[in-house]
């Protein structure tokens, strides 16, 4: 069937997006179920469903959020980061995801220092005029903070004066900008020159960095989002993982007093680790999904992808088919009741609909997703 359709094309490999093309016939502007990976999802902020219990992730206190793999841990972390970023840095977000494994005592703090340097650099890029208005002491301290930036400050200042778009820097440093300024212009080049001229001594300690972010940028609190801790072979066991983060748990109280909050995004299996349970300083919550919430996950995506034209797959179903979302959720096994699984399920349903060439979802589609041609794709 596929080959026949493509036979019409000239001999060259011509690439099309049949899925997306097919979707537009159903009123979708994009594929709502394309992204399983929240880091690449441009619409996350618009359609993420957040269970009530984990709304504390956005509050002003140290927090631990637990979730199953595929339970939406990273999505919530990115959501929180965007949320703080939208405050223009009044609540200053720093994302710390260790990129390697080491048991050195200061490992996490050094990593955070670098994350903070990235974020501070992007803040200055977002509001370059802010720097010119700072006093000389803050200017000097900022330079010291920025010494920790990956690839070195020298390299980054060259990148700042030579690149054309803020997005070039965002990509290289892996940190989003705070403002909506798209282009790099002469103000940025002036910033690069002034930062280069500024005298520099040794790097600033982490706690002095926090203070600087408050004083120079006017941040009222700093939120350090800690994720990806369980991504290493060495941290698969919950024992090893708790040991690894112990140094961080020990400073919670002290940082709290300076309005600096650590927010942990952790795998569910360490939620009952004594080191965490006994901590009074941190509030914890688990990302847990019930059928209705999962159905809502699908509905929100449908709503956004249809540009708000409809909020349920019922809209593109035969009139005798109702509650498509809930039906899909109920088809999942007990252990599969996670956003990722229901998204995959919905994706297969839409693909099956497109492949079948029908104009609406019938109960046959709904109950035989596994037997349709696209099931070849796991």
């Amino acid at each position, binding site marked *: 069937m596929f080959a026949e359709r493509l036979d019409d094309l000239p001999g060259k490999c011509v690439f099309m997006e049949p899925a997306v093309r097919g979707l537009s016939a159903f009123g979708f502007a994009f594929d709502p179920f394309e992204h399983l990976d929240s880091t690449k999802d441009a619409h996350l902020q618009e359609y993420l469903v957040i269970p009530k219990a984990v709304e504390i992730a956005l509050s002003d206190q140290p927090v631990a959020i637990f979730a199953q793999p595929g339970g939406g841990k990273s999505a919530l972390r990115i959501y929180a980061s965007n949320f703080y970023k939208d405050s*223009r840095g009044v609540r200053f977000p720093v994302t710390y995801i260790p990129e390697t494994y080491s048991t050195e005592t200061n490992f996490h703090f050094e990593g955070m220092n670098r994350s903070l340097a990235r974020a501070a650099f992007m803040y200055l890029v977002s509001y370059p005029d802010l720097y010119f208005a700072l006093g000389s002491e803050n200017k000097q301290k900022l330079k010291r903070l920025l010494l920790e930036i990956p690839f070195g400050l020298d390299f980054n200042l060259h990148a700042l004066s030579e690149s054309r778009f803020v997005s070039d820097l965002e990509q290289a440093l892996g940190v989003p900008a705070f403002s909506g300024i798209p282009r790099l212009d002469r103000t940025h080049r002036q910033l690069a020159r002034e930062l280069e001229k500024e005298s520099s001594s040794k790097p600033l300690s982490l706690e002095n960095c926090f203070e600087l972010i408050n004083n120079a940028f006017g941040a009222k609190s700093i939120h350090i989002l800690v994720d990806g801790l369980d991504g290493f072979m060495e941290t698969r066991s919950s024992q090893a993982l708790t040991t690894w983060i112990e140094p961080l748990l020990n400073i919670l109280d002290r940082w709290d007093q300076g309005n600096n909050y650590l927010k942990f995004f952790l795998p569910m299996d360490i939620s009952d680790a004594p080191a965490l349970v006994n901590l009074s300083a941190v509030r914890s919550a688990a990302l847990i999904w019930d059928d209705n919430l999962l159905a809502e996950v699908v509905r929100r995506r449908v709503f956004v992808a249809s540009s708000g034209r409809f909020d349920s797959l019922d809209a593109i179903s035969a009139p005798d088919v109702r509650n498509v979302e809930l039906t899909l959720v109920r088809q999942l096994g007990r252990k599969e009741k996670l956003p990722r699984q229901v998204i995959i399920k919905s994706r297969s349903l839409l693909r099956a609909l497109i492949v079948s060439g029908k104009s609406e979802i019938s109960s046959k589609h709904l109950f035989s997703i596994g037997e349709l041609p696209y099931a070849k794709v796991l």
Partner: protein
Amino acid sequence: MQKSYKVFNSAEFADRNAEFERVQAILQERNRGGVIFEGERGSGKTTLLFELYRRFHEQIEMKPFLISLFPYSAPEFESNKNIWINSERMFQKEDIPNLLNRITRYLEIDFIETEDRDFQKDYFARGLAYRASKAVPILLVDSIYECPDDVRTELEKYILTPILASERVFIVLSGRGKRPIWSRPELQTAEIIELHPLTEIFVKEQLEKMKSTRAAEFQQIAELSGGYPLIVRILGESDKALITALNDAIDIIIQDTLPENEREGKRYLETRSQIEKLSLVDIPFRIPDVEDYLYPNDPEQRAQANQLFNVLLASRILRYEGKGYQLNQSIVHPVRKWLALKQHSEYRNNLDQLKRVSQKLQEEYPSASTWYQRMVPTDLITAQH
């Protein structure tokens, strides 16, 4: 065409005490948040927002700022600094820096000035986020659902979002039709207050306040208008026969939502006649359900129906609700009244055609047959015989 109804006059304002109390309660209970008034065309959202603004303006600890996105006038607020209003044209994306400038000055906010004009709005927005003042800002934005997507997203990005960064803030919005896709949680979870039509006694109050010569006919006006304040107002101001005035009112409430090129002539008449047909459908409908009813024997019926739906959706007098599309009740109600009064032969034809279509759908989807039985309004059938 008369445009007098696009003017706010607090003296004519009737009822809505329940809504005021809700807003007051929310303000007292919470530190911050959002309230959205949703309602159909002519249900009085704009007037309510202006009245809310007027009342907040009188309270010292409040700092209200009203943004009116569509052409409107409010002579009594002409000299106010905390309002953005234009009787001539719609709000545009390009107005954002000026609007931000006005808001920041009104709220006495410090901001960094930059040489590049394009970037200034980012510094304004930053200033708004860092705002440190005792008074609680209350931002009121009228008809935000109806404005173009790009304008709305910019408003959200540069004004609503930064202002929401502070500890104490309230946002009051109004809108009609499909809900926009917000990216801020405060807006996604904002308290939605639906504006219902006025009861007979408040129709009377409205007519009296506007010193209508028809105040005595309040019962009939309430029945014909369905209690929608805008229709009450048009009927109350008109000196024509009620049935003619109702016809005018229907034209006004439809025309003003349509794009410029659809408002007059043949195109408008066609749209109006299709709206009359759709007003008879008693269940939420899908396009395939009604295409044969709207365009019988037309080989292009699906494309035609799609086009019509797109116009109506953009006009926000049609919206999707759970099981299908529904026309605004503020249109369905007067249209049905008007059709019943007129007793056109076309009206009978439409009902017959609708019955045929309902029958066909019942056969096509046996398991949904009770649903499609309800497609034809029973009260009208009995009225007809």
